[in-house]
């Protein structure tokens, strides 16, 4: 398998305090892979995701996307935010079209793409409404539509389900898995930051476990089982306890 994204010896620290937050983290993401990054809270996993996205420059090390060094937000990677980060003053449709800012499509074409995505994600007919009239789950669907509007190959998700209630989160998780596996969307690989071990084990092909500050790579867990996975299966429980032990130990 070809790797689509490579993180090489990335370190990060806050300048004024001089404290290292991330220490020498390296891993690769292959095409078609769902990778979760998990770690104790405050370990810098969201920062790591932002470094991958090109939002923050790393202190040391490099990130390569499709063979090229990431020097700023890269075309080809979409980003889903934990708090949705929708503009309350734009309609849902306009919010999704934000994701098309870097493309040079005509306005009509942009509208078509956004409306198509809304229908696909169960948001049909809500285009002219404002985000604040939506439930949390619907808001995150708008956030996902925005992230995949420009047909990225890699989708970066920063705790995308943690602001949702469990039932809503479960629905959205299975929709994303379905879209990924049916190759219904352009996204080939997903990197998800989470603090929820169960979620990581349920969704990922690989789980990257980070240690506490300064965080470095503690363990990489391959999961070969087919999705959808049975949470009650014996291997599921064992793996969960292993990762928990790593996180708390």
């Amino acid at each position: 398998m070809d790797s689509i994204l490579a993180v090489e010896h990335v370190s990060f620290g806050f300048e004024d305090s001089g404290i290292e937050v991330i220490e020498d983290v390296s891993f690769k993401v292959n095409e078609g892979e769902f990778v979760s990054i998990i770690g104790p809270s405050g370990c810098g996993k969201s920062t790591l995701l932002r470094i991958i996205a090109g939002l923050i420059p790393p202190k040391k090390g490099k990130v390569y996307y499709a063979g090229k060094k990431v020097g700023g937000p890269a075309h080809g990677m979409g980003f889903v935010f934990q708090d949705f980060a929708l503009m309350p003053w734009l309609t849902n449709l306009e919010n999704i079209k934000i994701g098309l800012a870097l493309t040079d499509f005509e306005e009509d074409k942009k509208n078509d793409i956004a409306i198509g995505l809304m229908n696909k994600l169960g948001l049909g007919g809500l285009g002219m409404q404002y985000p604040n009239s939506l439930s949390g789950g619907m808001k995150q669907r708008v956030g996902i539509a925005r992230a995949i509007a420009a047909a990225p190959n890699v989708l970066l998700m920063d705790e995308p389900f943690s602001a949702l209630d469990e039932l809503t989160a479960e629905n959205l998780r299975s929709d994303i898995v379905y879209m990924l596996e049916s190759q219904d969307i352009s996204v080939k690989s997903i990197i998800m930051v989470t603090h929820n071990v169960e979620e990581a084990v349920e969704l990922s092909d690989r789980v990257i476990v980070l240690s506490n500050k300064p965080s470095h790579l503690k363990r990489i867990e391959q999961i070969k089982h087919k999705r959808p996975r049975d949470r009650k299966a014996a291997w599921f429980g064992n793996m969960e306890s292993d990762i928990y032990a790593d996180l708390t130990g």
Partner: protein
Amino acid sequence: MDLLSLILRLIVDTSASWLRMFIALFFSVIIGMLVGIYAAISDRAAKIILPVVDVLQTLPILAFFPFVIFVVVSVLPGSIGINTAVIFLIITSMLWNIIFGAYEAVRTLPKEMVEVADLYRFSGFDKLRKIFIPASIPRVIEQTRLSWAIGLFYLVTSEIFSVGNSKYQVTYGIGAALVTLGATNIYYYFIGIAVFIAFLIATILFFFNPLEKRFSLDETRDVDVMGYKRAAALVSTVRKISYVERATKLLVSGSTKIGRSGARFAMRARAPYPGNNRPVKKERSGRFSRYMPYAVAVAVILISGYFAIQSNILQYEGEVLIALFATLARVWVAYAVILLVALPLCVYLLFISGNKSRYTSTFQIIASIPATILMPLIVIAFKDMPFGPNIVAFLIFFLSGVWYVIFGITSNSGVLKSIIEVKNVFGVKGKDAWKRIYIGAVLPGLITGSITAIAAEWNASIVAEYFTSSGISGTGSTVITSVGYGMGKLLDLALNANNIGLLALAIINMILMIYLINFFVWKKLYKRVADYYK
């Protein structure tokens, strides 16, 4: 005058001004707390108090000062009357945010606390003493910083105004002293400004900071650490001289507090972003409010028709309208320039520079100095130019209003971090960014900031449009600056001529104009913003 006696005189003047400020603050806190608590515990009272306070705080109360001073002095003659009028005026500037502060504090009180009190059969007075007053104290104290900053503008401006009208001049006051010095010796004037700023910093350090530390509920907020960080950025070039560093640190931490509470004030009432816990007010439903402005317009026509029968009122009304529109034009031209400067600046600070605190702390130092204090300088620099008086008025208006817009917008950064990330990750740039991101992001803060800014401009008009030296030279009166037509000028002249009818008519016209602008401009914009957050 030798330097020592000048400084002593200035200290006496500033102390006199500060005494007025503290008396006004004392009454404002007591009245504000009681009214705010009453509004919070009685829904019926809230229905009347909140809308009234909302209107009162958008009125340029200083423009009514000539009227107030006329009435008060005719009842209480001499310096007692003038001081009463000045203190009353400062109270009217300090009170409103304190009322809202107390109201919010009690409204956000956990319901269980009141239930406990009911359970143990507290009397109404006991509830007030043991629950409502202690609960509202931290919020009210937080608000007093802003009250102080606004009050200072009113105080200085009203004192300067009194100098232009020898009959009504305050004997001691830093605002009065500064214009007198400005007209006689510019070097002394700068010493006066230095004394004023020294008092300002001392008040913040030795009064407001300890007070807030003592009563603040928020243990995590460390006043000094915050100020120090900003100070460190500012004084990096003079780091070696330790006393400069220390002085700057004190100055910055002090002014930062005023600026920040100013910003908080701008946010307080209206901006419906998260972090502002006062719920967005629902539009009053029903025909009554919808047709209200039209009813008002009809009433105006009928009343003016009635007065038209009396010919001199008709003539007054003509004068008032010309003056009103002249000042309106100046105020809005200055406001347009404020927007041209403040919008790109704020967008740069919030979205592009990534280090807004370093710049805003610099602004906050400058902004805590009332703009009208610069009157003498501006007059000297511009009065002999073509359109000199108009330039003077314009500059004072600009300086009085611009900070409110800047702080209104920059304080609105609660949701900004993720918005900046969205902008970067999806590469929204240029015109697209203005249309889709900047304007929407700054709009709530822009509206609140603009309303306060325009009120501040009107306030400044009573000294910026017309000013004479009667109180300076003592004999006769030289016009120092005077525009052709203007509301500030009209109010000044009407007061000097004891023309109570003209004063009253001018005020009625101003109230109507502000009411109509609020209704047709700001309410509409608010409604649009409120729609997003429904």
